[in-house]
């Protein structure tokens, strides 16, 4: 552990605020575990899936995409310049999955049967495919993050072994992630009868994958900028510019596909018809795609770290809106016609905040006590 990380102070007001959020979240979790989903959430028969699924699970997993994209760049394509951000990126991915798993645990009706899919196979279900991916990929992320812990513990022989299988683990992890991101989109392929054509298409799995790559890159970039400020971890600006170019290229492909499917499956008019779905579509496109792309196409913006941070925040926000749109707002017209409505309850929001606080705290803990910012 070097001077730089030892200077991180653990017991600050910031940490106490995180603890407060975690405690409140835990309280609401206990409420959900005691009284069930109907009491704790705004869910109902017309809206069987809500904020925990749309935000925590779909959003948390998309957020984690930075881990596999960066691991792929470094260990598979040997782009060594990104090595300084490898460990934070993979840890962020692990925490994103943790958020998704906690949310899934609470969101299913029988939390203590979470293990059932591992034993009761049903290969026709995308949900089963997703469950198996989560199990395998969380394990892989554990292996990918283990060098930090092994170095700290000075377990040299295990460390040597992990380093030997690292490339294999990354290849395996990238395969799992690619499929997992797209499988989360594939979950909705069967719900076409109730979804707006602004989002529904047979290409939905790949739209999830592409937007997750953009969000993952933005997430890694944002998280490195915050680390630079909070933990005094300096990263070469070329790394941020490289990530911004990655976001730009991904968004260009994504925008073209979005426009293609808008025209093919729906219509431009449908996006501007003033309906809830139309407005949410515009919000998602403006915040997550069009404004960030406009900023990134300007060469001067692309070299300003503050502008890049703004782009990162916009892209992350936009993709989170997209996940809520696909899982909730795309079904608005269908649900309203059936007398349904949904708004997340305090429990749902506070549990989500508590889980985000937990992730932030764990990241801080790792920054303080583990060689998180070393190149490994």
């Amino acid at each position, binding site marked *: 552990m070097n001077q730089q990380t030892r200077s991180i102070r653990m017991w600050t007001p910031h940490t106490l605020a995180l603890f407060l959020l975690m405690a409140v979240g835990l309280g609401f979790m206990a409420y959900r575990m005691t009284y069930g989903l109907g009491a704790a959430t705004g869910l109902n028969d017309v809206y069987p899936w809500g904020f925990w699924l749309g935000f925590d699970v779909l959003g948390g997993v998309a957020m984690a995409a930075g881990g596999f994209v960066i691991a792929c760049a470094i260990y598979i394509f040997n782009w060594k310049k990104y090595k300084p951000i490898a460990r934070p990126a993979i840890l962020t991915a692990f925490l994103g999955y943790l958020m998704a798993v906690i949310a899934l645990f609470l969101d299913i009706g*029988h939390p203590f049967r979470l293990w059932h899919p591992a034993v009761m196979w049903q290969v026709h279900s995308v949900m089963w495919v997703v469950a198996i991916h989560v199990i395998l990929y969380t394990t892989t992320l554990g292996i990918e993050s283990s060098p930090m812990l092994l170095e700290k513990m000075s377990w040299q022989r295990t460390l040597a072994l992990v380093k030997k299988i690292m490339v294999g683990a990354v290849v395996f992890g990238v395969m799992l992630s690619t499929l997992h991101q797209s499988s989360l989109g594939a979950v909705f392929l069967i719900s076409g009868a109730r979804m707006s054509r602004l989002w529904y298409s047979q290409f939905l799995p790949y739209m999830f994958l592409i937007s997750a790559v953009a969000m993952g890159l933005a997430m890694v970039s944002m998280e490195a900028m915050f680390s630079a400020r909070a933990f005094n971890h300096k990263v070469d600006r070329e790394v941020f510019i490289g990530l911004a170019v990655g976001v730009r290229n991904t968004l260009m492909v994504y925008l073209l596909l979005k426009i293609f499917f808008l025209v093919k499956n729906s219509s431009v008019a449908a996006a501007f018809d003033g309906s809830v779905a139309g407005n949410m579509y515009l919000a998602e496109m403006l915040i997550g795609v069009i404004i960030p792309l406009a900023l990134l196409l300007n060469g001067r913006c692309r070299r300003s770290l503050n502008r890049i941070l703004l782009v990162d925040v916009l892209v992350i926000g936009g993709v989170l809106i997209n996940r809520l749109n696909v899982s909730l707002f795309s079904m608005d017209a269908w649900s309203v016609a059936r007398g349904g409505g949904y708004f997340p309850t305090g429990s749902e929001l506070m549990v989500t905040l508590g889980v985000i606080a937990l992730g932030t705290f764990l990241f801080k803990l790792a920054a303080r006590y583990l060689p998180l910012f070393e190149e490994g």
Partner: protein
Amino acid sequence: MAATRRDFIKLSAGVGLLAVAGEPALAAGAELSSGAVGLLYDATLCIGCKSCMVNCKRVSSEPGGPLYSPGGTIPYEFRGNDRIHDSPDDLSAKTVNIIKVYKDGSGMRKDKVRDGFSFVKRQCMHCIDPACVSVCPVAALTKDPVTGVVGYDGNRCIGCRYCMLACPFGIPKFTWDTNDPKIVKCELCRHRYKDGDYPACCEFCPTGASLFGPVTELAREAERRLALNPGSEYAFPMGRIGSNRYSKRKVVGYFRKVYGLKEAGGTQCLLLAGVSFDRLGFNPGIEDVAYPEFTWNYIKKVPYLIGLLLVAGAVGHQLTKDRE
């Protein structure tokens, strides 16, 4: 446009064969099972007495039924202070069968669109290739290999509610108000077959509007009714096919469609009505495709994608080894 049941079966058999040739067995596009049973609901015979609802709720609350709870109470849905009438608004975890009504203008003419009304029965359609069964990650929902009834096993269910999202008809419901929840839907009174009984909605229907029987025979009966001349007299079978109980009535003009022959790839519950099914609340967005195919088209690619991605990763690593 009148596709017969046989055409449908040929089609689905074709899809099944393709699936066997190209993909792993059990692929989407299943065929009607040998002993497939179902319902034929004829809205023109329905008088809206709701006898089916009352008896469904009573019988479904018996052990083995979808509404059974160890306490043994019947889950009535009272409105306000009225503790007399079970009056559900819609299907729910307490109601697996409901009679609804379409109404227009003065609402005086039975089974007519203008100034008319029509009843409609809503319940699980028991799809030939059900979306809910295909999406269930733990096979808590299964299709009986003989009767084709879509049944539920609460001990496997993890409560993910994907079936609710996947069902094009919006049928599965969830017991939200408990910490030990389950999915609830019509299981076509499968708990009554061993005693020789059949679905309560058909047994207690006083007009033959709900008719139980083998799906192929129900489809034939439905096609026969469509061919009748309005105003002529016809002996409508009551209860179940082969019961030899008939109700002689004048035939009303039908909307020219047997609902369920093609919708969602075909269902074991069929409907006839005097007005269009869009007006009766069926989602016109439901396609004539077995819904599991939408996902299977993706899942069947997964094994190839795994191989492709692993090879691409290894090759990528080798090619860029010398990069600085």
